[in-house]
């Protein structure tokens, strides 16, 4: 049977408080214009760093918008990104508990949302996604539910509550809606992915095939054309591909090389580059006493460190956004025969 697996392709990004680069990116999408949009939280909720970056696969940089501030058009803590059927970019802000939307050129179009716990109110909106009716689904994280709105902010419905039963959530994070309008939720605090059809729970993924690979606080999910799903297994600092039967097909720990922007930096900063060349940034033996994947990732630069978002482009290339390494690792499919 012909199948496919993913292989490391390129890295996009570099840490930068302003301009070309990212600072604590939280999500990325590959929009209908082929551009990549990346939300950045910044290091200290400060005036520099917060922005939506606009770039493409070739690392061409088109500028940024949605900078820090409380005024319309500004953001304090961007979290999830999604494009609607009218090619508008929507951004959730988990500090103001609002949704802002822009044209793909970065022109501010509107903002809505109210903080609270009642239906239609938001508390720490995280992942967002549109269905085929152009309804916006929001992971209303601290209310432990999914809420649904029109793009202009009219409340339609909500479902879910705090708990670990089917259809309940614990601080849900990333969400994804497939072409059949089925919803996948990274149910972060419950260490699972839940799948819904017509707002009814239909399946749970936890990577149950092997005790050692159980999902650990997943942050993001998407679905391949094959029906397999890709999960950012955030707590394990890996990305997993799971079958529809919840079996592990492939797992990545991260293989980042040097991005175009990083290369430009190193070429102009000779002293850093020269000492870097004589360093071993993959020395696992030196940290053999560490067991926490997060701590290991702090040492091993090529590994994922806080993978917060998994997204696909039209070629099914996989974009893994890493918050703590301020970059996106891209993986491409290669065909293989079983």
């Amino acid at each position: 049977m012909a199948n496919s697996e993913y292989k490391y392709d390129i890295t996009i990004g570099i840490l930068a408080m302003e301009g070309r680069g990212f600072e604590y990116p939280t999500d990325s999408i590959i929009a209908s214009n082929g551009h990549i949009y990346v939300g950045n939280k910044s290091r200290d909720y400060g005036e520099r760093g917060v922005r939506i970056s606009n770039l493409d696969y070739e690392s061409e940089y088109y500028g940024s918008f949605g900078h820090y501030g409380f005024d319309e058009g500004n953001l304090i803590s961007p979290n999830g990104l999604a494009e609607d059927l009218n090619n508008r970019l929507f951004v959730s802000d988990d500090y103001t508990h609002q949704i802002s939307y822009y044209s793909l050129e970065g022109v501010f179009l509107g903002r809505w949302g109210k903080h609270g716990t009642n239906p239609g109110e938001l508390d720490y909106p995280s992942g967002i996604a549109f269905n085929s009716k152009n309804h916006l689904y929001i992971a209303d994280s601290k209310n432990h539910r999914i809420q649904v709105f029109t793009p202009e902010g009219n409340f339609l419905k909500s479902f879910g509550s705090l708990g670990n039963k089917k259809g309940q959530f614990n601080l849900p994070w990333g969400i994804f809606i497939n072409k059949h309008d089925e919803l996948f939720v990274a149910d972060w605090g419950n260490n699972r992915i839940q799948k819904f059809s017509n707002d009814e729970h239909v399946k749970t993924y936890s990577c149950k095939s092997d005790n050692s690979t159980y999902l650990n606080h997943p942050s993001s999910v998407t679905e391949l054309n094959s029906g397999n799903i890709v999960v950012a297994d955030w707590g394990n600092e890996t990305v997993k591909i799971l079958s529809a039967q919840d079996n592990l097909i492939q797992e990545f720990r991260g293989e980042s090389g040097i991005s175009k922007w990083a290369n430009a930096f190193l070429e102009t900063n000779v002293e850093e580059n020269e000492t870097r060349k004589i360093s071993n940034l993959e020395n696992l033996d030196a940290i053999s006493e560490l067991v926490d994947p997060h701590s290991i990732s702090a040492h091993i630069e090529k590994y994922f460190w806080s993978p917060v978002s998994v997204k696909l482009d039209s070629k099914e290339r996989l974009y893994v956004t890493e918050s703590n390494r301020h970059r996106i690792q891209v993986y491409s499919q290669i065909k293989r025969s079983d």
Partner: protein
Amino acid sequence: MNTKTRTNIELLAHLMRRAGFGSSLSELEKIAKKPYEDVVDDLVYHEESDWVGEYHIRRFDPEASGMINPEGSQRRWMYRMITSNTPLKEKMTLFWHGIFATGRNKVLVGKVLSNQTDMLRTYGLSKLDDILLNLAKDPAMIIWLDNQENHKNSINENWGRELLELFSMGVGNYTEEDIKECARAFTGWSIGNVEYMMVRASRASDWPYGRLAYHYEFKDDDNDKNDKKFLGHQGPLSGEDIIEIICSQENTARFIARHMYHSFVEDEVEIPSWNDIPPKNPEAIQILVDAYFKYDHSIREMLRVLFNSDFFQSPKVRYARIKSPVELSVGLLKLSQEFTVPHRDMLLRNNQVTYMGQGLNDPPSVEGWHEGIEWIDTGTLMERINFASAALGNINHKGINDLVNKIKKSTSNVTSNEELVQICANSIGLIELSYDSLKTMSETISNIPELTDKVLTTLRLIGTSREFQRV
């Protein structure tokens, strides 16, 4: 509540203020069902379990996880202290940080500082030998005291000197020659990729992909393996041998015991005066020294002996210490529950703690902080009062809202403002107010008609009181 029970619970309140960051009345009532010695055992032996705060930090405050700046490590630690279910571990981590004071102005990388904090948390209650050995291998300490510059053919004495003077024995208990020999034993105790890390540090470089954690590396070819003479011992002494010798000294036991008394029993004079001014309670120090040797240098057992001792339980030492800024603010944030999960305002609270004079991972010098009355000056006192007043007066915070509702329910038979003040003081941890404080507060709230406002004002006043500012 009968007299015996009340005595017991007041003693527990004292214990929890010292071994942790204070407990509310409802928390105290839960643990009061056990004998005092069992509560001490729980504190001393309890290992942390099912604490999900680390995941919360990583998700809700990414910089406190990636730590480009040192403030991230401060916020992470603060959140941990507020939400931990092992308060003594946190208190001991803070205790050791005060002694092994390591600072951001030289180490720069928050993650490296944070890893040191984690190390102190892991080993803080174990044998002193293990603590010092891990400290010697700790990358933040290596950078802080320049041990990466300590080479076989060109020693740097910084680590060797402070190991003896500030970290274990105290000045006057060794010679200059001992310092040199000690430094020789630790040559080659360095970090991996040292050239690259030092270049990045010199430029505060985050590029290309953020900070990299440091790891310890023993450079065998740079280690002096020749004979050394140290504190009466001779031979090809290694760093491990040096630590073993240090930990076998009575002066070391006495030095650690006095630190422990200073931090958990009552304010002592500052360390530079220890050679000139004897301890306030020499018998207590001797009890702790004896425990040190009896229990094979175990810090855990020293603490158990201390908390079970008469000198600790004596009413005379209650409120005999001034809360450090961290103790004060962590206790208040525990009560207010402002941070059930981390969020942006932790940045502001952390800054306020720094303004009070105790920025975590940012000591004024290698000597750490001067404590006791030196925490207080006109500026820091205002910060402390404002912080306490704001924390206890905000009903939007869950902890305060719950507290106010509980107090209001218990005031149906209250006939005087004095009684109300006493109920409030009990609710936030059985604070024993003086007659003057009680009277002043009662008068202040006498003209407030609405009960919620009255309770909130009372809580704010208690937070600013002399008694609450002490421990």
